[in-house]
């Protein structure tokens, strides 16, 4: 229950900080969101469905975080020809996805 609450609040705070361009706070809350969700998914899935757990982490965490890191490098060093601001769309589409999946899993478990 604590992990679910932390996830929901950290996601909301990430969104608010992002919208108002509070970058450091946004990174802190996003990290809390990612860690709490990953731990929750691990608790709910890892023992019985390890492959699904890794697949979810790859899609909902590793892929968007890699895109965000590329975006950050692009801002700092201008390394890509493509407009990497598209990474933000990917991040906002995939990162929060783990929360409803976890909520469904919790409901199914109960």
């Amino acid at each position: 229950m604590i992990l679910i609450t932390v996830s929901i609040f950290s996601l909301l705070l990430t969104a608010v900080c992002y919208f108002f361009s509070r970058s450091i706070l946004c990174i802190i809350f996003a990290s809390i969101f990612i860690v709490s969700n990953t731990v929750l998914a691990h608790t709910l899935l890892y023992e019985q469905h390890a492959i699904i757990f890794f697949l979810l982490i790859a899609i909902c965490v590793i892929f968007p975080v890699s895109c965000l890191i590329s975006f950050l490098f692009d801002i700092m060093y201008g390394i890509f020809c493509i407009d990497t601001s598209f990474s933000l769309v990917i991040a906002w589409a995939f990162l929060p996805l783990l929360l409803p999946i976890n909520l469904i899993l919790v409901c199914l478990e109960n």
Partner: protein
Amino acid sequence: MKTKKIFISAGEASGDLHGANLIKELSKKDPSIEIYGLGRDRMVEAGLRCIHDMSSRSVMWLHTLKKIPELWEIFSDCRRFFDEERPELVILIDYAGFNFYLAKAAKKRGIPVMYYISPQLWAHGPWRVKKLKKLVDKMVVIYPFEETIFTRGDVPVTYVGHPLFDDLCTRVVDKEFVEKLSHDESDQVVSLLPGSRKQEIRRLLPILLETASVIHKNIPTTRFLLSCSNKRNLPLIETLRDDYISANKQRPLPIEIVTERVSEIIEASDLCISSSGTVALEIAFYRVPMIICYRIAPTAYFIAKPFLSTSYVCLVNKIAERMIVPEILMCRDEYKWLAARATELLSDKEKREECIKALERVKATIGHPGASAKAAREALGLIQ
């Protein structure tokens, strides 16, 4: 003596027009130059030896994904051209993204690159200056405020003025047609300019029609002109207008669609309600009060908002560095706001005069011809 070859790439319709003017100026200054590249009808008419026709390749957002195979093929052909023909100079006109790849390919082969009409770094993504610094030998910019951005980023830059004014200063407006459009002096004419891209029209036109309806309710003598800047968009515009009219039969709207006569429409109007873009400069050129709007999806606004680097979406306000014409970036259908501003500009004489005077000042700042000639001079300077 070896013939000098220049490669030019323009993807958008506006780029095609500016590219055509640039080609004419280049040919005037040095008739022996051969110009190859990517463009559309107008560039071909001006003398471009077209490697690929770029009509219907101007897309935005996710629609770009569908075009990747086509664009890849074009890119491969351009690389082959660079290898086989070794042009003296590559000139890229706007169309960021694809043109960045061409710049990289040219740079890799040691071909100088001039970027004419910068991507809108002043509006979003100013960090792209770093990319341009690596990819481009010379930036030739069209707005005075862009010069500062590139100078600060340590990129060689020259401000040449906006090429739109080359065209506007020589364009002959059909006065008879203007008279016909504004036939009754007692009526007030409001023109609606929903943009040139289909996606943009679909998003904006329903709001503009709703706005027109409220204006007509406030000032019943108002008539409306709906601009269709390209014949290709006419079926879409007619469908959207007819859908609106059939859904609002109890509130008939005096609205007329006018195709490919933007200057005449502006000249005949007392007020323009337009999408954001270069058209704002054209409206300013004719000193007609305007309202500028841009419709964006709420999710897109949420994602883009922290990275917007300008206080104004309208070019006229950006040049004046203050809000001289009302502008709005809409997430919702803000037709009531638009109608209120429009009614104010139509009925408050003082506000109108103030707006027209401010537009005159903007015109005096930027509305001079000669941009294409100056850009051509910069280009020739790079190969001599």
